[in-house]
């Protein structure tokens, strides 16, 4: 049980860092860990661009090392397809108008004693 908790804590820490990164890039975080029966969206953010408002749905994967590969490698095609479906449900429920939507992925590597390494890939799906 203790192990599971620390794994969850790691995930939360990764998502905190991911939110900070999106905000640093000028995005506004609208929602975190939004759940429905299909699954969960890690971060929903909005980005004002020259062509209007973009809604960004972001999947975050955090790992404590590279022993099992880079976290981004764990974000599969199936996961992104699910995220796309979830995005549609989220928009229907929230009635937010946006000119475009975008799916992003953020991989966070948190090795204890080392600075966090964060990789942000835009428009993956």
């Amino acid at each position, binding site marked *: 049980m203790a192990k599971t908790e620390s794994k969850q804590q790691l995930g939360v820490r990764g998502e905190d860092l991911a939110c900070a990164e999106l905000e640093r890039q000028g995005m506004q975080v609208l929602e975190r860990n939004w759940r429905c029966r299909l699954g969960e969206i890690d971060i929903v953010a909005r980005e004002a661009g020259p062509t209007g408002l973009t809604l960004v749905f972001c999947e975050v994967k955090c790992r404590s090392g590279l022993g099992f590969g*880079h976290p*981004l*490698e764990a*974000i599969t095609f199936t996961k*992104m397809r699910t995220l796309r479906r979830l995005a549609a449900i989220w928009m229907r429920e929230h009635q937010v108008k946006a000119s475009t939507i975008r799916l992003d*992925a953020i*991989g966070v590597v948190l090795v204890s004693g080392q600075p966090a390494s964060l*990789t942000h*890939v*835009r*428009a*993956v799906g």
Partner: protein
Amino acid sequence: VASACGWSVALVGLEGRIVEVEADIGAGLPRTVLVGLPDSALYQARDRCKAAVSNSGQEWPISLLTINLSPATLPKAGSHYDLAIVAAILAAQGIFRADELRRTVLLGELGLDGRVRPIRGVLPATVAAQQAGFTRVIVPLRQAGEAKLVAGIDVFGIASITQLVALLHDSLEVSAVHSLAGFNLANELITRPPYSDPHHSASVASIVGGGQRIARPRAISCAHKGVLFLDDSTEAQSIQWCGFILVIADALSKVATDNLTAKFASAVRQPGVARVARRQSLGLAGVGLGGFSSGRAMAQLRNIRSVSAA
């Protein structure tokens, strides 16, 4: 976001056709796509190459990697494209310069540990490369003799990805230093790690290098990526100096610096100009150093634990 290309040969019967292998590292989730009409053995090159690169101390790009074999209409079979694929990927990552792969054909299958395995058809493929105007062919080490049967093309045999990197990255750098030092390269790159063993009575300048307007690298730089062996090093004042300088230059990775003492600065007449790269193993021998007896330098070379392995 970067791309590079390597070259290989598709054999259709005995006739060889040149194949361009492009690698592009683009934005996207980590995924490797291999396009250009590969058969299943070739499609598996993806997984083979990935393991081979990771096990050779290099990194596989954590992004969308697209490998294209061109001309796309030509069906391609077999596993000998591995080497060209890996070379293109490493060049795209900037491990060595992409133009190192120009005029070079690469042939070889990879093992998961990064070894280069023999392939079939080295001779006809080399003939095709030579006829198409390529000047260099890199083949599995054991098959270098077969490729050398073809006149008019340089043949390099390699046993692993590590050697490929050494050949494409280090040889150019080492050759450039030797060229600057005034050696005649006689139409070919230096591919064997250099060895330099200046005499203990040698002056600081002849070991460290100098030069008035044009930097003249000497013993230290000429052992770049190789072995610098200082025999009887306790005998000579200048060599002791060099040992000291080496340790400092190691950290600074340049031959001359203004911060060094006046003695050294006067040996290198233009401090700060002669920045000639040097990374090597340093061997020291001499009475009082322990473990070595003087005058048996070569015999003991293999026992040298590098004192300063850069």
